[in-house]
């Protein structure tokens, strides 16, 4: 059992963790540790062999492994960053002791001056949404199937139904088609897709794959191996409309029914936001507990990896400053709240003093709408107002607020989305 000390320990070697490690070094951390549970760095990007990553950060369209490769090379070239792969963190204590384990080193105890949580997220399962029916083989979360197809070289089926039209579901519909499978349909409970518009077009429309909006899978058939599903239309309250059922044959059902930030290690140390399921953070991505930072999908599920990395940059930099004793203690804190029309907003609070110059807010709309006005205000004091031609829950709204505009007071800042003339809900 070894015992080691680091300035900054980063839990998770995906896009958030890698960016955090690099930025922590740039900000002066002497020794940084990255702990990755998988056999290699890169996180879920390694199985995302489609392109479209890095448009914001690198101004090119990269594949997932290419995008992560740029970070992995830098991390591995930096002698100040230690990487442990194939290593699982068993416990994090609030004194910043971390217990981890791997086959080479055995059980390892480390202490860090600052910790960055970057564990990403996991997929919701069939059980969480209570799909009735039998329990045969052939039901996979889209991400698990993606790993098998893209990294291991096996396919999960040849006749496929996808439930859920989030980005992963859309991309897997295309991927399985390219592997020669017949994708019978993508079925979506909501009246709209939660995926990026470009993915609806490039993954479904371009391949003629039907998308059944306001529908769900109401029954799974097949005892040993799935033989088909019953699909049914749902009403506004998402209840099945009797008589609308139809059957689709399949040997595989892929579930893309939502992602949940993976906070099993952080739960109990830091406060979690009930809506994002991630820790509440300030503009430095500092959590509610001193010296613990968080970045990426562990905070809130992003649509674009570029923003994940950006959040990693922020968390890593301020974790390094904290470790060096250079992050001043907060003198004042203001809450940021999701108001009308907005479901979530990150960060959930802003602290003084600030050294970031501007605060970038990430927001998700409650429902799809056209011609809306986004308003960020502290009481009567409007900080930012912006007209949006369209707002969709699947596409994060990103707005920078210059820090000097934010009044140094305790009045909470609220974010709202309201229809302007001729606008409103899209459906």
């Amino acid at each position, binding site marked *: 059992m070894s015992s080691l000390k680091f300035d900054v320990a980063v839990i998770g070697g995906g896009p958030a963790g890698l960016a955090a490690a690099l930025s922590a070094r740039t900000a002066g951390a002497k020794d940084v540790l990255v702990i990755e549970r998988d056999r290699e760095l890169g996180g879920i990007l390694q199985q995302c062999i489609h392109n479209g990553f890095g448009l914001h950060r690198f101004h090119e369209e990269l594949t997932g492994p290419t995008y992560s490769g740029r970070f992995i090379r830098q991390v591995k070239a930096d002698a100040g960053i230690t990487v442990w792969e194939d290593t699982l963190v068993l416990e994090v204590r609030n004194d910043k002791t971390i217990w981890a384990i791997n086959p080479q080193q055995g059980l390892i105890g480390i202490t860090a001056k600052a910790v960055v949580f970057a564990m990403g997220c996991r997929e919701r399962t069939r059980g969480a949404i209570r799909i009735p029916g039998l329990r*045969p083989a052939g039901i996979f979360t889209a991400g698990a199937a993606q790993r098998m197809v893209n990294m291991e070289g096996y396919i999960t089926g040849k006749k496929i139904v996808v439930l859920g039209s989030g980005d992963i579901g859309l991309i897997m519909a295309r991927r399985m088609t390219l592997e020669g499978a017949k994708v019978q349909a993508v079925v979506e409970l909501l009246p709209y897709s939660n995926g990026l518009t470009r993915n609806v077009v490039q993954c479904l429309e371009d391949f003629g794959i039907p998308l059944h909006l306001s529908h769900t899978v109401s029954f799974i058939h097949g005892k040993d191996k799935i033989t088909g599903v019953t699909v049914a239309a749902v009403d506004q309250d998402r209840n099945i409309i009797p008589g609308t059922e139809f059957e689709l044959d399949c040997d595989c059902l892929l579930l893309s029914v939502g992602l949940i930030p993976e906070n099993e290690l952080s739960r109990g140390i830091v406060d979690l936001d009930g809506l994002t399921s991630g820790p509440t953070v300030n503009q430095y991505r500092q959590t509610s507990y001193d010296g613990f930072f968080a970045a990426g999908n562990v905070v809130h599920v992003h649509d674009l990896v570029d923003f994940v990395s950006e959040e990693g940059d922020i968390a890593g930099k301020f974790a390094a400053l904290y470790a060096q004793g250079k992050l001043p203690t907060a003198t004042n804190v203001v809450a940021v709240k999701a108001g009308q029309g907005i479901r979530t907003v990150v960060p959930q609070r802003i602290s003084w003093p600030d050294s970031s110059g501007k605060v970038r807010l990430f927001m998700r709309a409650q429902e799809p709408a056209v011609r809306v006005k986004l308003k960020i205000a502290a009481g009567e004091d409007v900080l930012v107002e912006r007209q949006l031609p369209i707002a969709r829950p699947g596409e994060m709204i990103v707005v920078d607020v210059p820090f000097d505009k934010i009044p140094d007071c305790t009045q909470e800042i609220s974010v709202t989305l309201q229809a302007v003339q001729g606008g409103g809900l899209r459906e």
Partner: protein
Amino acid sequence: MSAESTDVVIIGGGIVGSAIARELSRYQLAVILLEAETDVAMGTSKANSAILHAGFDAKPGTWKGKLNVRGNHLYHQLWQDLSLDVDWMGSLVVAKDDAEQATIEELLARGNQNGVPNLEILSADQLLEREPNLATDVTGALWAPSAGVVCPFGAVFGFIENAIRNGVTLLRECPVQGIVIDNGRVVGVVTPHGVIRARFIINAAGIQADAVARMAGDNSFTIHPRKGEYILFDKTVRQLVNTVIFPTPSKVSKGILVSPTVHGNLFIGPDAEDVADKDDVSTTAAGMERVINGARRIVPQLPLAAAITEFSGLRAASGDGDFILRESETAKGLIHAAGIQSPGFTAAPAIAEVIADILREAGLALIEKAEFNPVNPPRRVFREMSWQERAEIVARDPLFGRVICRCETVTEGEIVATIHSPCGAVTVDGVKRRTRAGTGRCQGGFCGPRVTAIISRELGIPVTAVRKDGIHSFLFSDKLPGVCEVSTDEQP
């Protein structure tokens, strides 16, 4: 295998067949247990409430009345010997009005008659002090401290592995296709591997026990499948109740309960619905609704968002409601252990004693063997180890340093060990039921492919031959020529 000959063939690898196999392994006998599926514990023993009932429910004088209390008593001795997961947390039967209050008084009297130890009626105040999350309109409860919860498939593995260690042969994927009768007496069973000659056949085929009886020309009973649905919750909501909570029972069912599991989850269920099809273990929207509404009567605040899986099981109900434990009148040498519905799981070790007695009376000499070892070696469960033990085991076996299932902290070392145990796992769900890999909140989303790779490597079969659970439940097909990267022989 066609020339196989044995003293006793047991048909069915559920809790009853396994407990009988283990009981018979005490004696100088050749015993073969036949299981039609890929693994033991695949039928009723897989999907049930996993309660070791105290024994106040059954009518005095019935098999159920006699064997429930005896079985519960035996488990209090057996659980450590067999290395079973049991928590003796006790049970409550909750009443909500005068009529129900009268019923729990009746249960108290019946329980005392059956010999259930330390039963007690609690007042509403006493009850709410112990269980603050119950509905506030409860009027009282029957407290039975001798009840417990068990890992149901774990118990089957405990019995069968001990039986195998003591000389019993287990044949899986070996369905019985016929029974050979000579002169009114059974002489063997027909299987896909040929005829196995046997002097005695024990029918512990669960939901299929009537079909097995018919193969021997015995039409004396029928098994009616009665389905029950369950919802299982994440460990984060375990603290909602402290013990097994039953509603006051109706004539047909013990009702929908709210109970912790032995591994720290929480479940609600079952409902009771007669079904025609013995393969119908589907969950239904209506069934889940019934279960949720029933459970809300007792515990109003149910954290539905924390549900991680749903399943249903079939009770093997017989016509007259009691266990059928007797030699067939039509086919001598065929002994029925049938109609085993609740409290069959609890009664199983006592049923095994009764079956041994029936065999003895039917003329089989039961001579104890000196080398019988009643004890299973303790399992090495990483999750339950101290930090010191963890450090030591990884130092000895590096595979215990690789965590395959994050939700339940299951290591590669445990998975490899369970594949190579006496009744080793051969499927992904077989690994799950033995180690808990894949039972957590991600339900195998992360670890499923890795468990597949380990099974492929350890059993020396291609990834495409690895099955989820049932005989035809293959998971993957080939995409490209090549080998699964994680399934290479590479050792740390």
